[in-house]
């Protein structure tokens, strides 16, 4: 699979492994890239948004987007790296409405804030929960006291 035309203007790094293409993008340009993917490259669907915590290395967080072009039967992985201190990125809801819940989930479990998100609240954990469970420095067992 080759890099779709025009996407190289956003790509910092591109690599392919196991037949899956990953494009790393600077976090500031994510909305621009998403809109370009959706409207110019016909990636109609956002399959999922998630994150990976690389604690303790920096930049700590990777926000990972899997997009899907139904008409061309192609998938693509976008990746943005964020620092561990106050991780913030623009919301992809500007391009796909389905980003809404996915980003809420990432906020809920990783504590990454999405700017210009229409409804950034916890989604799976209780609203008064402390901490972000999927961070690597969050324990797997234990009781909050």
């Amino acid at each position: 699979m080759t890099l779709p035309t025009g996407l190289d203007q956003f790509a910092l790094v591109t690599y392919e492994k196991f037949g899956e293409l990953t494009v790393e993008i600077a976090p500031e340009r994510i909305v621009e890239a998403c809109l370009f993917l959706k409207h110019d490259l016909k990636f109609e669907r956002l399959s999922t948004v998630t994150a990976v915590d690389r604690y303790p290395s920096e930049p700590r967080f990777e926000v990972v987007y899997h997009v899907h072009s139904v008409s061309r039967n192609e998938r693509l992985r976008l990746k943005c790296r964020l620092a561990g201190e106050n991780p913030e990125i623009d919301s992809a809801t500007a391009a796909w409405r389905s980003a809404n819940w996915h980003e809420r989930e990432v906020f809920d479990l990783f504590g990454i804030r999405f700017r210009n998100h229409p409804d950034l609240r916890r989604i799976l954990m209780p609203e008064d929960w402390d901490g972000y469970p999927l961070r690597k420095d969050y324990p797997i067992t234990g009781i909050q006291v």
Partner: protein
Amino acid sequence: MSSIDLDARSDEPATETRTTQSQPRRMTLNMGPQHPSTHGVLRLLLELDGETVLSAKPDIGYLHTGIEKEFEVKFYQQAVTLTDRIDYLAPLSNNLCYCLAVEKLLQLEIPPRAQWMRVMLTELTRLNSHLVWLGTHAIDIGAMSVFLYCFREREEILRIFEMFSGQRMMTSYFRIGGLALAPPRGWQQRVKKFIDIFPSRVDEYESLLTGNQIWMGRTQGVGYMSLEDMLDLGITGPMLRAAGLSIDARKQEPYSSYDKFDFEVPTRKESDVFARYQVRIEEMRQSARIVRQALEGMPEGPFTADAPKVVLPEREKMKTQMEALIYHFKIVTEGFRVPEGEVYQVIESPRGELGYYVVSDGTAKPYRVHIHGPSFGNLQGLPKMIEGSLIADVIASLGSMDFVLGDTDR
């Protein structure tokens, strides 16, 4: 259906807001999390004007069990048992997707017999899931008897699963590298007996529902949603196919030798509850076709990959061969290392696109596993579907989505 209002009253008192003169008839209705039609623990906050839904807010997370976190402390092979518990109506689909993802990282070649067996059992899972959907969907709308017929056939499928794996629901029958156990003696007769009668049973369900005036009245033109909205909101699976888009990962991105099977992807144009019903009914017939092809053409050979570092050795070999004993000890005590990398494996689960994003850091435990459950994506589109409709139609629309809360909340 009058029972909706009764249920709402008995579950939780509806809070009427008669404070302002400008909105005299508005009321907020708290539906769920224990409402029978939500099939689990979905809570819907409905704002009503009379019987019309003005806005709907789904509230999920009541079944969140932190499965993604749990993955990070299990060996790759151990984690298969977690995948059963995500979508408890399609455990084998989740087994398969996870195994395929890890096998891609390991670059394992799975023998044809195991691949075909996987196809056959995931198609039986699809039947199982669709039968539960049909029975409960019909019961929600008021057709009580369909449920009993559906569960009669489902029982037989669960018995087949039990025969293969020893478990009815949480089978964990697919393992990284192949199958957990050799297929049991006599499975062919059992599956053949089932698949011989099943198509006539689908006719039976159809004779109860398709063409039934009440059923059509409750489902036709209800829960409409445009294809553009669906794609934008992340809806997948039978709902997209009922809106006219022929999309199915089994065809577009074939896995586990689905490309060797002859089946059709049913579609409809209407994009209403009835169209989704028709699509799923037709899918049951197609799945039955696939099961029959798998049964008749099942290749011979081993049921696990030739990868002694990943697949547990046979019991007999352990007693006679030194290497087998060592491998067994190593796999059980320290798992197996998976090369560094990341994959996103997508399969077509009964509910739509199921994706597993597995990140490996080269150790014996997954660094991160993210599960994209189809129910999560589908539920997000719910407000768009029911806003502006009558409250009685909410039940029909919910049923047509066929979500599982375990899959949504993980």
